[in-house]
């Protein structure tokens, strides 16, 4: 690529530049005695800077392995904005959408899944257990789901065995969820939670239990889960450039630099799979507009720091489970709903969930794409899809993300019509309250949505 690019540049410097450049440049005559005339690589000139950039791009394109490519990509360390997915900043979701060129679509994409929940006729008692007895799970008793009523005594019917039934048994899954919740919040003897550590005390273990038991239960229906890898508190990092700014102070003052961002995320739980999830919409679809923010990122507030530029999905490149399936995020104590309500910021509660979903999923999908060799000069050829559930233990919000483009730098964004898309729901409660050994007001919809997320798989499986 060096010779035609050098030629084109030479033409541009001296003559008018016509709008159509011949993309298929004619081959250099084979018997040229002179080396191609290109700009210098070491001079202090704009052409030399462009040439150095070219050389850097070629080095990354021609890197021997993905690790080498990632190392070269993040080699130069400069101050960068640290983007926190879980943030108290006002209207952070619009800012994050502009940083990542994401369109937010409320609601979840319509799925062609053939999953019909078995609802009517089987009203399981919500975990009404007779004390002192090892009562078995009883999805059969047709009683109202309030606590304390009715004899739970019926045994399991044979129709509830997992096997090849095409419908889901909501009663079984509901009882699993209730058991996990009750164990963590009621039955296990625990000390009082440490100050500001309530989320690690009950909702954290509950989420871990719930996801692991549901994944084990559903792996018969979804063979992708059988080959999956479950990580507890993994690290997910991504580094990218977007936009331009002028350096304000320091020895590099006055130079035009790309704006650098880094996300360092620690989801509570994540599932990685060896096969990619199918695309939701085609690569070039346009479902809305990306919000444009006219202020500097530091007004959000975002702060700059210089440290290692990491790109990591949760495990290294050599792992066969290199595609992401679902992440689970736990909202920390600092960002509880009560705090927002007390500060008269109720509308920002949803903003928090959305910002978390967009930022975490962008980082994860983009890191997955980099693990496959794509980067902002070599844009993705297939969309990368992942899902996330953001919760604070009681309220659940579901997000789906499709990464269509990685090209967010100033040069590559100009002719790029593609946008990344994020679908998301509002947060809904899973249950109302837990008291006296039973769960009141259990919401099946939320559980069903969680199960649908876990059952998502490529079409050929």
């Amino acid at each position, binding site marked *: 690529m060096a010779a035609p690019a050098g030629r084109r540049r030479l033409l541009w410097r001296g003559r008018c530049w016509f709008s159509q450049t011949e993309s298929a440049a004619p081959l250099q005559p084979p018997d040229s005695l002179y080396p191609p005339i290109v700009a210098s690589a070491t001079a202090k000139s704009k052409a030399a800077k462009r040439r150095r950039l070219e050389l850097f791009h070629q080095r990354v394109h021609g890197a021997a392995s993905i690790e080498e490519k990632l190392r070269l990509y993040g080699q130069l360390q400069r101050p960068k904005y640290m983007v926190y997915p879980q943030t108290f900043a006002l209207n952070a979701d619009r800012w994050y959408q502009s940083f990542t060129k994401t369109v937010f679509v409320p609601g979840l994409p319509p799925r062609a899944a053939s999953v019909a929940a078995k609802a009517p006729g089987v009203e399981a008692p919500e975990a009404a257990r007779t004390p*002192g007895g090892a009562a078995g799970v009883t999805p059969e008793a047709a009683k109202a789901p309030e606590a304390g009523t009715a004899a739970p005594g019926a045994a399991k019917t044979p129709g509830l065995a997992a096997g090849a039934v095409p419908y889901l048994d909501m009663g079984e899954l509901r009882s699993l969820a209730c058991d*996990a919740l009750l164990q963590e919040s009621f039955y296990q003897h*625990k000390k009082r939670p440490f100050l500001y550590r309530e989320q690690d005390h009950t909702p954290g273990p509950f989420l871990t239990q719930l996801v692991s038991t549901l994944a084990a239960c559903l792996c018969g229906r979804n063979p992708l889960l059988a080959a999956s890898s*479950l*990580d*507890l508190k993994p*690290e997910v990092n991504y580094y990218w450039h977007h936009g331009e700014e002028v350096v304000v102070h320091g020895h590099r003052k006055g130079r035009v630099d790309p704006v650098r961002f880094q996300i360092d995320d620690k989801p509570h739980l994540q599932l990685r799979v060896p096969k990619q999830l199918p695309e939701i919409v085609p690569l070039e679809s346009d479902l809305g507009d990306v919000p444009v923010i006219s202020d500097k990122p530091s007004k959000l507030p975002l702060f700059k720091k210089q440290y290692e530029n990491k790109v990591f999905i949760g495990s290294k490149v050599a792992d066969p489970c290199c595609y992401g399936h679902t992440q689970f995020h736990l909202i920390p104590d600092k960002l509880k709903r009560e705090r927002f309500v007390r500060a008269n910021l109720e509308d920002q509660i949803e903003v928090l969930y959305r910002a978390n979903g967009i930022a975490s999923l962008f980082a994860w999908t983009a890191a997955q794409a980099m693990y496959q060799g794509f980067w902002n000069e070599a844009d993705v050829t297939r969309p990368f899809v992942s899902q996330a559930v953001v919760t604070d233990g009681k309220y659940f919000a579901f997000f789906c993300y499709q990464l269509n483009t990685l090209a967010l730098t100033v040069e590559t964004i100009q002719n790029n019509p593609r946008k990344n898309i994020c679908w998301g729901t509002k947060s809904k409660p899973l249950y109302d309250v837990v008291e006296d050994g039973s769960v009141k007001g259990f919401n099946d919809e939320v559980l069903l949505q969680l199960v649908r997320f876990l059952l998502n798989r490529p079409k050929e499986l």
Partner: protein
Amino acid sequence: LFQGVRQAQWLTKTKLVEGLPPSVLGIVDNPAHQLEDHEEGVKRAISHARFWETTEVAPRREHYCPVLFEDLIHLCRLMSVKYPSLTKRMLARNYKISATWERESILLQVRGLNGILMNSLAPIPPVASKEEILATEEHVLETFHPISPTIDLQEVNVYKELNDTGFRDGYPYSHPHTLFFLESANIRPNRFRPEQLRAKMLMFAFGNALAKAKVLYGNDPKVLEQPIVVQSVGTDGQLFQFMVFQLNTTDLVSSDGIKNLVWIDSDQNLYEKAQCVPEVKKRVVTKPAGIYGFQPDTFKKFLALYLHGTV
């Protein structure tokens, strides 16, 4: 514990049997209980824990030990495709146990946070037959006179003799199934040696079984009709210790009579060495990176202990 397992045996009035009990060995050998490609899965789990889990070149033990354990449990849970009742198990982390008993006029107790407990809905059926239990009557507990068995135990003033399983009444998964101990300290002196780890496993398994027995049968010391079985697995990320403990009697004051039984399978290596960086001597790669000396039998035993009680 100073003398390790021998001291724990005296304190809990237990007879030791080497190797795992026949019912567990039966599950190990039965090919119907294997996962497909479980060797591949286990190798992947080890590689994930030892190599790929963090951005550092070689993750340290406090990272890789829990990750390996979680991955192995994830693999075992996938067996619930075949046996749906396996979903009726709950893992309890950070739970507290307390059990007190008297042993030849010395009051002993086991308390505190131990490992990770897996509870199940149904108890494990007794492993030893009635004859074996009666045969333990003749067995004599070995003492190490002149060293007192309580030499290195912490002496505390106890104001309440507490017996607590760690869960409230009415908990549906009320039978302790397996205890997992992870020795994940980075520095070797902070970790238990294998002998002491086995002793710790024995003491806590006994504590759990005793607390459960007192809940089920009351506080009077007696011989149990239905012996209670609790299993235990201890590991430091590479070496595994397997143990099955059966509580036959709560009459622990005297040293005669029926004893409890424990089967121990010790020092099972899952792999010999995990090389993170290739070893290079004089510019020639002598040992490429990877897992060496993988032994699938250790995982089969782990899986057998997990499945024990439901198959």
